[in-house]
């Protein structure tokens, strides 16, 4: 595959040749995943009480998994000029091996705190996130929605801060979390707070997850007290902050999905070459060839949309701005890849036939991750509506 066209082996997030630094990041990440959580071990953890090896996040943090979107002066750092490019490359590599853990929601929190965190967040929380010692996840979903801003959590001002009450649904790794970044309507204004997971009145309801390699749950908040230095940003900055967070999450999510679909597609093409029926490899039948060619086009279009979105949102982060243009491209990638991943995974399933419907085969791991990523941080339908709004209509 790609013997005559080695250029197609480039990562989705960077179409060309990787710099020496990024190549090193890629190699060390691939080695880490192979050693610590390859698919057979991932399956063991998925069936066990904890979804990942005990020191997984800390060791991942040593490779920079949670520092990429944090400014250097706060202990962060990245290997290229754009942290989002590095983070998206990591997401893509994670997707290829359906890695566990709150990579996307934790990086969003790291980004948000690096930009808008209080002095206490920057001094105490951010370094611990970067080191993988503090699990902070973005809990954005209001009940009946996978998105924020519907008033799922309400805050009432009290003398020394405010009291929050409400629910957040579809929270990733809630039991492992030390804190949650969530939005709440406080005295009629949309705000974000970093909530201590161990505070009185915070209850986590574990749920089963479509993606067996992830843990999901529901967050119930009953009169939890938060102080002024728990807030992230102001009422004035919150709408744009949330929008940028969605852009960042969308970019990382599609990079992860495309990493997974790329791997699944490689497995499928190999299978079409190996599997014999009617006296010949099934990949020699034109019906199968054309199916795979169509999937290959969808995959290359997905990669192209990811690369465009990474570049556009990285430019916004560099300039510390939220431009509608970058958000439109991020939403475009989220909408396109969500739909394309469905078609790619179904097309691959069709080529595999019966073996692809077994638990033993890895196809369902990729299918599950892609489906969850499609729904998280806005479905394709939601992102299409966002595109039209951002387009001025």
């Amino acid at each position: 595959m790609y013997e005559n066209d080695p250029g197609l082996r480039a990562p989705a997030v960077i179409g060309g040749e990787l710099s020496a630094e990024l190549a090193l990041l890629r190699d060390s990440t691939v080695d880490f995943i192979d050693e610590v959580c390859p698919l057979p071990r991932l399956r063991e953890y998925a069936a066990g009480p904890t979804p990942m090896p005990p020191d997984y996040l800390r060791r991942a943090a040593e490779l920079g998994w949670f520092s990429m979107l944090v400014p250097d002066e706060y202990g962060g750092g990245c290997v290229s000029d754009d942290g989002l490019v590095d983070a998206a490359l990591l997401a893509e590599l994670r997707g290829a091996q359906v890695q566990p853990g709150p990579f996307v929601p934790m990086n969003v929190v790291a980004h948000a705190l690096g930009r808008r965190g209080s002095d206490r967040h920057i001094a105490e929380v951010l370094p611990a996130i970067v080191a993988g010692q503090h699990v902070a996840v973005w809990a954005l979903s209001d009940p009946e929605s996978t998105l924020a801003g519907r008033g799922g959590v309400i805050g009432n001002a009290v003398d020394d801060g405010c009291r929050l009450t409400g629910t957040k649904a579809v929270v990733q790794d809630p039991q492992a979390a030390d804190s949650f970044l969530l939005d709440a309507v406080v005295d009629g204004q949309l705000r974000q707070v970093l909530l201590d997971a161990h505070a009185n009145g915070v209850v986590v309801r574990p749920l089963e997850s479509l993606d067996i390699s992830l843990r999901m749950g529901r967050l119930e908040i009953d009169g939890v007290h938060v102080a002024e230095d728990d807030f992230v940003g102001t009422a004035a900055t919150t709408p744009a902050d949330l929008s940028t967070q969605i852009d960042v999450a969308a970019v990382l999510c599609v990079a992860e999905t495309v990493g997974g679909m790329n791997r699944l597609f490689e497995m499928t093409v190999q299978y079409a070459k190996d599997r014999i029926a009617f006296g010949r490899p099934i990949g020699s039948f034109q019906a199968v060839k054309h199916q795979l060619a169509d999937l290959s086009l969808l995959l290359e279009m997905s990669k192209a949309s990811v690369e465009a979105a990474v570049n556009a949102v990285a430019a916004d982060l560099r300039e510390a701005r939220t431009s509608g243009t970058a958000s439109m491209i991020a939403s475009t990638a989220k909408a396109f890849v969500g739909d394309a991943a469905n078609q790619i995974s179904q097309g691959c399933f069709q080529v595999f036939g019966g073996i692809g419907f077994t638990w033993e085969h890895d196809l369902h791991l990729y299918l599950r991750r892609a489906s969850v990523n499609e729904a998280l941080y806005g479905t394709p339908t939601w992102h299409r509506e966002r595109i039209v709004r951002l387009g001025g209509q």
Partner: protein
Amino acid sequence: MTAMATPQADLDRYRARAREWITAHLEPAAAKVTPGRGAETAEHISAQRELQRSLYEAGWAGIDVPAEYGGQGLTPEHAAAFADEARGYLLPDFGILSLVTFGIALPTILAACSESFKLRHVPRILAGQELWCQLLSEPGAGSDLAGIHTKATPHGDTWIVNGTKVWSSGASFADFGLCITRTDWDVPKHDGLTWIALPLKADGSTVRPIREINGGWEFCEVFLDDVVVDVDEVMGGVNEGWAFTHTMLVFERGALRGGRTELPTVLAPDLVELAAQRNRLGDSHVRQLIATGHVYDVVRAALVIRLEAVMRAAAGSGNLASYLKLAKGIYDPLRARIAMEVAGGLAVAFEPDSAGAVTSTNFLNGRVQSIAGGSNEMQRNGIAEKILGLPRETNVEKGKPFRQVLADARKW
């Protein structure tokens, strides 16, 4: 200190001279509306020939073509400088024949034809005296281009050509056709092909325009009955036509490549306008359609940007162009269909030149790319076999004389 005469200074001087001539002799582009594709008239074409001749006589035609063939013998940078300065002015416009004559025929002739052929034809091309079209497909050979039946038979110092060509863009105004013929039926399919410069005004050549589903007349059918062609009008070598085909297709791909691609940032303007005209911008289904159209536009542009970068960097196999072509063939019809749904009745009953008229025309034209210049199926075969490395289709023609292939095909 006096400046050295650097190439850049040369180029700047050349550019200044070009600008001076252009402003004095060419009309600004806004002054006239050029006819749509396939709508050229004989009067239009002859006026354009005059314009081309004036360019040639003033020394602005074939800028990077060697002087011995009537060009200026300068560099592609000089040619680009002239093109740059001439932007916004009316250059000779022969419709599709501009692309075929100057983008495909001219570079192919320069690369693959004999010295005497070049001396004979290139100056006349540059002077607007020879317009060229392609004579490739036949009623019985489309995707299977090498399966053509048009026959060239040697007769003294001439070839006698017989056959039918179809889908020849612009043949009614062309002087010559790049014509692929079969010259040996007793060797395998690809080994008996020869390209010939076919004189379309010669006796025995009849051009009949074909009316297309959109009402236009871009394509032609060409009937060749005992057309006599001099032996030295062979392009490339006798029975070496398949290698020539590859040379030509490389230039064709280059000529068809558009300019620099950028990501669209404005929300699908055609769809927004249609929705606004129907007062449906608040309809969530219509909004989803608008966004879907925009997503296709952006992702297709992103694909072009990404793959062109890969092709440039890897000096690639050229196979990757199949993705771009297949994307057109799949998404052009889908995109056109979205506009139809947003337009509703506006695309069914409309004033001329209205948004609805454009939508309905695009809907008809939107399907061209799925079959033209290598159908979707041919692109899928190319992607599957050449890029993904899937096993090649069993070749039932392999090693067989073409005559035998035809006989055996009837036994299926």
